[in-house]
Each structure stands twice: as C-alpha cells, then as structure tokens.
C-alpha cells in the first residue's frame, strides 16, 4: 500500500493504493478527470524526493506527492 497526496491547489483527498510502480499510478490518475488535467504540469516526489523517471519500484509505505507549478515570494 502506498499513499498518494495532492499538494497545493489540487483538491483531491489523499489516496491509498495497492500499486507497484509509478507507471501504474499514471494509468490510474489518467482515468480520473480531476487528476488528469494536472499530470502534464505536476512533479512527483517519492518520500519527499523529486523524481524524473517512471522506472522506480514502489515499496509498501511509500509516500507519493503530486506537486503542481510553484510560485513563492
């Protein structure tokens, strides 16, 4: 089981999913209207580290975050 958290302006509650890879997560989120529109502009952090590849295996307890475009200051 991994948790998937949507940060900032993405108004989707945290999900608990039984998935083994980021590619699987993409498949699921592309089927949901609310999440689909954010995928192109959002970054992914696994356990608070940004990743740049789908070739990452997920372990039980991993925390995944979706981070939309930022603007501090």
């Amino acid at each position: 089981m991994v948790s998937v958290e949507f940060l900032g302006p993405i108004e989707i509650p945290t999900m608990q999913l039984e998935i083994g890879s980021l590619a699987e997560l993409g498949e699921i989120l592309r089927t949901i209207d609310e999440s689909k529109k954010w995928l192109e502009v959002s970054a992914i952090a696994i356990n608070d580290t940004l990743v740049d590849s789908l070739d990452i295996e997920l372990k039980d307890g991993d925390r995944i975050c979706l981070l939309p475009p930022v603007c501090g200051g």
Partner: protein
Amino acid sequence: MLEIYSGALDVESILSRWYRLSLRDNCGAFVPFVGSVRDENGISGLSFDLYEPLLKSWFARCSDRVEKEGATLCMAHSNGNVYLQESSFVCAIYSSKRKIALSMIAEFVEDFKTDAPIWKYDLIGKRRIYALERSTPLYGSGILS
C-alpha cells in the same frame, strides 16, 4: 536558517535580528531581499500553501551551497494570507566581504522562485484563485502524463 510564519512577516524585526547575527559573526556585508504584496490586478492580498518537508530539504541544499562560499543564508516565508502592503518573503545572505553576498542573493531568489514548493493564490473578493500562469513547473514535471 528557515523560518515559516502564519500570515504576514514582521519584516523590521526579522531584518534587525539577522543583521545582528551578521555582526556577531564578524561579517562585513549583509544583503537582504524583501518581497511584499503590491496593489495590482484588483487583489486584496495573496495566499500561500507550503509543503514543509520538501521546502526544508530544498533550503538545506541552498544553505549548504552558500556556506561552502563562507557565507550564511537566512529565509522567512509566510503561510496563509498576506494582504496589500504586507510582506510574505524575506531572505538574506551575509558574508565577510561584499562580493559573495552580493553575487549570491539574486541567484538564490531566482532559485527560490522556480524551485521552492510554495503555491500562490490571488485573494479577490471572497475567492482564493491559484496563480497558475505565474507559476513554474518543478523538476521532472509531466512524467505521469
């Protein structure tokens, strides 16, 4: 040093405190940057969401880079609502001599704008509107699309 406050920053006291640290550390140059909320586009203020775990690790990396040059980095940011003529962001670099602090401050502020996990909203009437068009995608964005 990273400080997160609920609402507007008390800029005068933050600057005073960091300035005294620069003196205590025998530093000859103290270079702050203050970002305030301007009256524009009909907003009554801005609002911010922060993701603290990533903000802290990002800031630690920035701070390490600055310290490698013998300088010190300080930053304060607001969480939540900040109204017109209030300030939401203060940072400062202090160093023994002027060149390092002066050359690193602009670079840090630009890194901050593109890399810090902070989301900005315009407060207009009773609405809180995500400032998408002024925002920048983080590293690796789009891999799930």
